[in-house]
């Protein structure tokens, strides 16, 4: 558990954080300039703390009352910055091994999981954005940190690249027991990875709680909410060239029809993404609708925000919930409530397919990641 209770002045306002973080991954969110990066810097020891206490489990990193300020090199906190921050004068291998005490199983494992083994002799300048981030991750993991700090690691990447990295982050979360503090603007990323969200505003904790619950928080902008997608793992089942449709079999036997993607071989693993606002909700069985994908579901919950509503639906109890974004007017007109029986409809054109590797065998992808 990470216990934060400190204050330190920033340029425009003081950073005053009081929070206990228990989840394996905590997303730190908030508008630009709210102090998110400064929070990470304070925990890493790159920014001095004026007064207060920072502790990870039993290890006290900072306790100004006791005069204790552990220097950064002793904190064992891994840091992955926005632009990867790779050392340009070192090869990938040298970067990864920089803080490690020689090559070890741990380092090898990180290289394998992040699939950067083939990049060893190359220099950072020749890597793509996604490769750089994976190397940066491996470098941080190689030091066996007890906490990982990630500062908007996907912000500099384009959408398709982000889709490919999130599964690696999921792997890191699941393979290592290391807690993560993940700064992001993107609600979808937070939903995909985090067990808890810390919302910052002007240097203070505005709200703290489960990601989905925070969707209803007035503090969250419409723009932030726009990025939510439903992410599902599946396999190419068949192609129908004349019909212009490719069928993807999802976990639990669900089949999704997507626009023809004949270049993807049958049987290849894919991730399917459906934006929450592309999910239509009907209270009666759908007939005569062009949508190729119609599923019966039960409403599990409705989160309301100013002028916005998110409806969580379960198609099968054991499968991840789908999120549909509706206007409050629609929710009212349809008389939706928890337990309502609904039919969800999605056009095949609204479904995006990417060839990201699955998070881990047997585990379905969570709701999340996206961004427009």
């Amino acid at each position, binding site marked *: 558990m990470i216990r934060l209770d400190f204050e330190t002045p920033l340029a425009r306002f003081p950073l005053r954080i009081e929070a206990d973080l228990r989840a394996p991954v905590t997303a730190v969110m908030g508008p630009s300039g709210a102090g998110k990066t400064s929070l990470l810097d304070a925990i890493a020891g790159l920014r001095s703390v004026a007064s207060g206490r920072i502790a990870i489990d039993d290890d006290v990193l900072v306790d100004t009352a006791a005069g204790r300020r552990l220097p950064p090199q002793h904190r064992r906190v891994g840091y992955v910055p926005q632009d990867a921050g790779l050392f340009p004068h070192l090869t990938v291998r040298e970067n990864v091994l920089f*803080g490690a005490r020689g090559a070890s199983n741990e380092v090898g494992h990180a290289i394998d999981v992040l699939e950067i083994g083939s990049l060893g002799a190359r220099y950072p300048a020749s890597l793509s954005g996604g490769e750089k981030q994976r190397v940066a991750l491996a470098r941080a993991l190689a030091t066996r940190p007890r906490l990982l700090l990630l500062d908007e690691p996907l912000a500099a990447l384009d959408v398709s690249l982000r889709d490919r990295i999130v599964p690696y982050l999921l792997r890191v979360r699941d393979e290592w027991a290391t807690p993560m503090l993940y700064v992001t603007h993107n609600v979808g990323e937070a939903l995909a990875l985090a067990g808890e969200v810390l919302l910052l505003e002007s240097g203070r904790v505005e709200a703290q709680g489960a990601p989905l619950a925070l969707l209803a928080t007035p503090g969250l902008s419409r723009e932030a909410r726009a990025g939510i997608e439903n992410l599902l793992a599946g396999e190419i089942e068949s192609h129908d060239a004349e019909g212009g449709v490719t069928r993807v079999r999802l976990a639990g036997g669900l089949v999704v029809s997507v626009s023809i993607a004949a270049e993807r071989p049958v049987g290849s693993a894919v991730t399917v993404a459906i934006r929450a606002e592309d999910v239509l909700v009907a209270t009666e069985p759908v007939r005569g609708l062009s949508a190729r994908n119609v599923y019966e579901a039960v409403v599990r919950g409705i989160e309301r925000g100013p002028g916005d509503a998110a409806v969580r639906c379960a198609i099968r109890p054991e499968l991840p919930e789908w999120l549909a974004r509706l206007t409050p007017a629609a929710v009212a007109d349809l008389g939706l409530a928890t337990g309502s029986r609904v039919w969800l409809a999605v056009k095949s054109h609204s479904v995006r397919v990417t060839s990201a590797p699955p998070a881990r065998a047997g585990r379905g992808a969570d709701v999340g990641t996206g961004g427009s």
Partner: protein
Amino acid sequence: MPTREEWAVVLFTLRVAALGTAMILPFGVAAAALLARRHGPGRTLLDTLFSLPLVLPPTAVGVVLLDAFARVSPLGRALAAAGIQIAFDWKGVVIATSVMSFPLLVRSALTAFEEVDPRLVGLARTLGCGPMQAFFRVTLPLAWRGVLAGTVLAFARALGEFGATVMLAGNIPGRTQTLALAIFHEAQLGHDDRARVLAGVTAVLAFAALWSAEIVGRARARRTA
């Protein structure tokens, strides 16, 4: 064309400039590293002190050096006891030229260190480096071209030093006479043609030194772009 004695003067000048520059290299780098870490009034004071020889008249620096190394001074006494001669000796030339070119090295190195992304240094810290380690593993390797350019600049300055040198080391032909001093001497004697030849050689050397500094600096700019 220079005579054999004049070539000897050229060689002597190159040697003392090289020796002096090599001597101040570790100190200059350390001074720049120290300055790069500090901010505020402490740094301004140090920065000003290190830059003084750049702005002071070389003869003023010469007077200070003479006093510092005079037989009657504590330093002078210690050196005399050890049998080391500084004034009117080639060692005096090395010291005078080093002191005058020191600020150029410090300033160039400082700029180079400050150009290194501080976030990279911070990351090195989180990866287990103490401040010194981070300096040697990240800052210095990334700044070496700037340091090199500063070194060449300091060397060029040392080649042309006159005021402080003539005061501390005197103008002894064959012993302490550098190119700059030789030019003055020849002019004093009315040998203007020799003075011009020597001035020409000095110009060629200075040109070559500055050209190299420029090339090294240019390569650095390209690399970080």
